[in-house]
């Protein structure tokens, strides 16, 4: 598979179809993977592809607006590209998507544990509820050869854990999230790693007025985390990068999943499936639910 990726990348650069390839390379530690930006055809041999390729590289597309970019995209990454196209953040002709078939990536957080046994690294939780193994959008698709271990699917209910949390009492829920948010250090890694958080100036950085407390207190942390989640309502494609990036282990995917579930139930809407559909919050239906309104 990797040979075909390299060949395609090399060809794209050589024929000047793209200025730059965004892909994966081995990190200095020899195990994990780092993003790489290649503009010379001969450097494409650095590229790799394996289950450690956890990043959603579409986050970097905003850094190269106006240039022709080739990007290696898994199914989840491609879905975020769709949202970016839907929101006019990209021009389709400016990007060349090298879609890769993916059977799941590793749970990178386990790499951090004290003695990582490579064989024990399971699939990331996010891959268990990922539907397609092939990207919904691509210019060329690199398929898998032979049989590969597949991330086990959550067969019944992808929102099982959300439902379980919903059933808790209000005070239980509050206590749980108070504990989680109290660890937040406001590094904004969740925002920075998110391909869909592309505002030139985030509300969290605005000072006139200052919307949320800069203090590392529950008050500010709560506002930040709710704001982040709300801004992704109907846009989040559950690539799980925010949760992976969070250094203090706040279950951000759980919040995203909750909104995803509501959006599905209330509006039968799923983000990142077609660039033609309207963004959830910039359209409406006359019959939207309003039983909560007096």
């Amino acid at each position: 598979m990797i040979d075909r990726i390299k060949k395609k990348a090399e060809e794209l650069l050589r024929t000047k179809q793209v200025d730059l390839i965004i892909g994966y390379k081995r990190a200095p530690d020899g195990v994990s993977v780092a993003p790489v930006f290649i503009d010379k055809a001969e450097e494409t041999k650095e590229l790799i592809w394996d289950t450690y390729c956890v990043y959603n590289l579409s986050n970097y597309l905003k850094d190269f607006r106006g240039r022709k970019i080739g990007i290696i995209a898994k199914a989840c990454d491609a879905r975020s590209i769709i949202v970016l196209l839907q929101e006019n953040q990209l021009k389709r002709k400016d990007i060349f998507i090298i879609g890769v078939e993916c059977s799941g990536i590793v749970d990178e957080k386990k790499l951090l544990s004290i003695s990582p046994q490579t064989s024990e690294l399971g699939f990331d939780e996010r891959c268990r509820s990922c539907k397609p193994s092939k990207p919904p959008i691509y210019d060329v698709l690199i398929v898998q050869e032979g049989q590969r271990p597949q991330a086990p699917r959550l067969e019944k209910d992808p929102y099982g854990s959300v439902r379980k949390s919903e059933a808790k009492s209000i005070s239980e829920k509050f206590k749980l999230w108070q504990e989680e948010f109290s660890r937040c250090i406001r590094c904004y890694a969740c925002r920075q790693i998110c391909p869909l958080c592309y505002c030139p100036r985030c509300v969290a950085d605005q000072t006139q007025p200052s919307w949320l407390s800069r203090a590392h207190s529950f008050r500010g942390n709560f506002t930040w985390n709710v704001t982040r989640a709300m801004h992704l309502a109907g846009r989040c494609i559950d690539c799980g990068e925010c949760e992976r990036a969070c250094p203090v282990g706040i279950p951000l995917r759980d919040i995203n999943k909750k909104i995803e579930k509501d959006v599905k139930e209330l509006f039968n809407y799923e983000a990142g499936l077609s660039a033609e559909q309207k963004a959830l919050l910039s359209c409406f239906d006359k019959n939207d639910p309003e039983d909560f309104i007096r």
Partner: protein
Amino acid sequence: MPSEKFFVKEDLYNKLEELSKEFEIIGPRELPNKGIFYQSLKNTRDLYLGEGFAIEPIKRFFLKPSEWIFDERFRENKNILEGIPLPADKRIIISVRPCETRGLTLLDKVFDSDYKDNFYINNRKRTIIIGLACNKPAKNCFCTSMGGSPIESRGMDVLIFDMDRGLIAEILTDRGRELFASIGEGLNEGQRRLLKEDKEKKKDLVEKKLSPPEGKELDKIFESDYWEDVSRPCIGCGICTYLCPTCHCFDLVDERRKRLRCYDSCSFPDFTLEASGVNPRPTKKERYRQRVFHKFDYFKKNFGENLCVGCGRCIRHCPVKIDIADIVDKVPGLKKE
């Protein structure tokens, strides 16, 4: 001369239990699926004495993420400023890694120098630090290249070695001696030999190495494209700076009539954005370069040491695996032996 004491873990737990009446006991605690965090320990048996490293260093207990500096009030038709009384309760932070306390000795140079920061100094004074030597450095640790080591004791009152059969505490200060007066016993000949061997062994445990550049060499490549290349993957979050035991940049903000000193990070564009709209560090390149230069050049010129202790946190927790050690090691034009 430091003196040594031998005791078993059970003794330590009991001792801490006893001390908790007088001191606030802070130590690492493992939260399942989240990692290790320094917390105020209500139950001293929650204390983590394993090989892992806390995500956040102990910096936060000295340089708080948000320090409340004063209140502004309007009383009897007059504006007044109300100072915040400095906390006086005594604390013990236990099971601290050598790199983290070394970080404090570097912060001392900033906050306990010409303009003295009373908040920081008060926190330093009221805290006794009991270290724990590393048995198993993580793969990203590179403390030995930064002038530290897994058995480094600078900045500590007591340093504990976890031997197979028990713990050996090296008492380093009078405060530490007082604390450990009634626990354990002095070492016998065999134990003394074991400790010596252990120290020798631990010195060479750290595998990752880098040769820090001399200031002048970095000066030469200030304008190099190298910084653009290495900063490209950077997403501009604050993880590396907030989790660094030595990063100390801050912001002063007013909120609800209070002035706060909050952590700030050189990786945020707003850090240097001026009111006029001019930003002297407009892109990731300048911002990342600032981080490297502050650590390996500017601080060295001003204070004689690198502003890095080699704890590896910024590498370990970087969401895109930027490896500052690798970057500094590969700086172009550096002479390698």
